[in-house]
């Protein structure tokens, strides 16, 4: 992080810090609520990977699109998702983004260009094609960011979409969060390459590799790729090397991860690194930083209270919205 001189205003730096903290604190609260049995089902946490979503989305506006993954909370927060509606959805409540029908893996917000987290590994690649095509077809300078993990690049969808996006020069940035694991499989066990970005060569798509725990490095690479996309020059792969500090899902003890590896990556945790930079460069004083932290804590607390106090969905909700114009029959 040292030595990188970027043309980023202090306000933007502080915003990025707030976003990273929001994600981390959202995830920590979700982690505890899940352990306490207050969140039904499975959740996949983004702890340790915050710099990726933050650095990328800091370049976007509401008209740009993202496709996300099963590990989507971070992307959605970074793209401007509402914390209350997100938390309520995790709790399965009527006030959640999906009215309790989607849960953690299916949060979407079309008004913010969030085309949804997704429960199928690799599905977002193909959906991103459509958003990219649409942006191009309508003559806009909108872009679509396709977030995905290293392991999803073993799915055919990755290759199909990279190929089609390249042939049509679609405004898509493929952001690989290489967090070292596909569920329990370490990267060297699930693919015989180190850099996913290399896969772009097959499709004439340029690829760059950056330190995914350095929010500035991510920001800078994404900035360049997004500009390229907006200028009609086609897709880019931005591979961000990062680490999944938790298990695949909450409840997975992650025993397949070597202890030394985990410790080494925790030392490279993106948030303390960023805090150090902010303090050393006088962007925030320690007191101001504490105030920012307290403010985020309050926002997360409010989100949890909102979720806790929200009603369970009426059973009727299960029958609605299967179609725009047909309500399914009850039992």
């Amino acid at each position, binding site marked *: 992080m040292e030595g990188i001189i970027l043309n980023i205003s202090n306000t933007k730096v502080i915003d990025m810090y707030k976003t990273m903290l929001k994600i981390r604190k959202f995830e920590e609260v979700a982690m505890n609520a899940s352990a306490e049995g207050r969140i039904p089902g499975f959740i996949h946490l983004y702890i340790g990977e915050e710099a990726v979503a933050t650095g990328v989305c800091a370049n976007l506006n509401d008209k740009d699109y993202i496709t996300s993954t099963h590990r989507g909370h971070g992307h959605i927060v970074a793209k401007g998702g509402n914390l209350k509606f997100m938390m309520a959805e995790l709790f399965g409540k009527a006030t959640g983004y999906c*009215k309790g029908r989607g849960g953690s893996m299916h949060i979407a917000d079309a008004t913010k260009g969030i085309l949804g987290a997704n429960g199928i590994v690799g*599905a977002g690649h*193909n959906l991103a094609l*459509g*958003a990219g095509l649409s942006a191009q077809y309508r003559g806009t300078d909108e872009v679509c960011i396709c977030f995905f993990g290293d392991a999803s690049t073993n799915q055919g969808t990755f290759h199909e979409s990279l190929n*089609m996006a390249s042939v049509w020069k679609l405004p898509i940035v493929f952001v690989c969060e290489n967090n070292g694991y596909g569920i329990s499989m370490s990267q060297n066990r699930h693919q015989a390459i180190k850099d996913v970005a290399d896969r772009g060569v097959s499709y004439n798509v340029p690829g760059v590799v950056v330190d995914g725990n350095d929010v500035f490095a991510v920001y800078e690479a994404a900035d360049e790729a997004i500009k390229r996309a907006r200028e009609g020059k086609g897709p880019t792969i931005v591979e961000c090397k990062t680490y999944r500090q938790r298990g695949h899902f909450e409840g997975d003890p992650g025993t397949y991860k070597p202890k030394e590896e985990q410790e080494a990556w925790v030392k490279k945790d993106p948030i303390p690194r960023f805090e150090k930079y902010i303090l050393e460069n006088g962007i925030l004083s320690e007191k101001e930083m504490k105030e920012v932290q307290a403010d985020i804590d309050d926002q997360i607390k409010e989100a949890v209270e909102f979720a806790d106090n929200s009603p369970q969905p009426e059973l009727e909700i299960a029958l609605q919205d299967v179609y*725009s114009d047909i309500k399914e029959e009850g039992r």
Partner: protein
Amino acid sequence: MKTMTYMEAIREAMRIKMKEDEKVLILGEDVGAFGGCFGLTGTLHSEFGEKRVRDTPISEGAIVGCAIGAAATGLKPIAEIMMGDFVTVAMDMLVNQAAKLRYMFGGKISLPMVVRLPGGGGLSAAAQHSQSLEAWLTHVPGLKVVYPSTPADAAGLLLTAIEDDNPVAFIEHKGIYGLKGEVPDDIKPIPFGVADIKKEGKDITIIATGKMVHEALKAAEQLSKDGIEAEVVDPRTLFPLDKETIFNSVKKTSKVLVVTEENKRGGYGGEISAMISEEIFDYLDAPIIRIGALNTPIPFSPCLENFVLPDSKDILNGVKKLF
């Protein structure tokens, strides 16, 4: 009225919507200057240009996924899957994505998209190019499934499909692409969920879909000579299904034969039969007869394929069991 083939009617419906609405575009393999593998898109590429009639790489999953993403962000794509059989390659996109996004996303997303699926056998195209997979599609909540049997129905239903805010699987029987029929000069949308009685009768209800409608009509003509007046009901849309028209016909005739081209085992014909048994059993005078293809892959050699696929003779034999 004017005479058109089934294929021309489908093309004409796309042309009408493309003229009307800049947001409508076609995606598919070889649909552009080549005009489609069956020649269906024909001259649409020269009429509307590369931007709106887009050749894609051979990537069915990406074609359907691209249509979903485009529909979610303001376009009205029509995706052509060259052979309906290849929908299996795109099944995740259709089943796990297109069908479920609106529901999972809290009803806040619309997917006005059509996936055209040339299905059915009879062309010696063998087991990977001849299937009738409608039961797989109707099984999935969130998809609408349309299966026209005539040029007029194909045109009218496709107009509706393109305007629909939900993903529509539009099955076309490729064996009747050349079938001619009367189409109104001013083609109007035909609403989904409205069956059409292709022939009235009082003695037995034959429910048939796609090409089997024509086999049923052929059988009905023969039956008429034998003094049996069959009523041929074409649901036209498999979901939503016009149960009312079907049930009213059954209440009148008290006998039912359901014929679809699918392998009989697990076919949608079974679902229709079950609905009748479950909801209006008391009106039945006899067991429901169900006709479908034999439960084999579709073989290549014409004599074998004819043996496996159902036709008017099978329908006649089925009806005769009840009289």
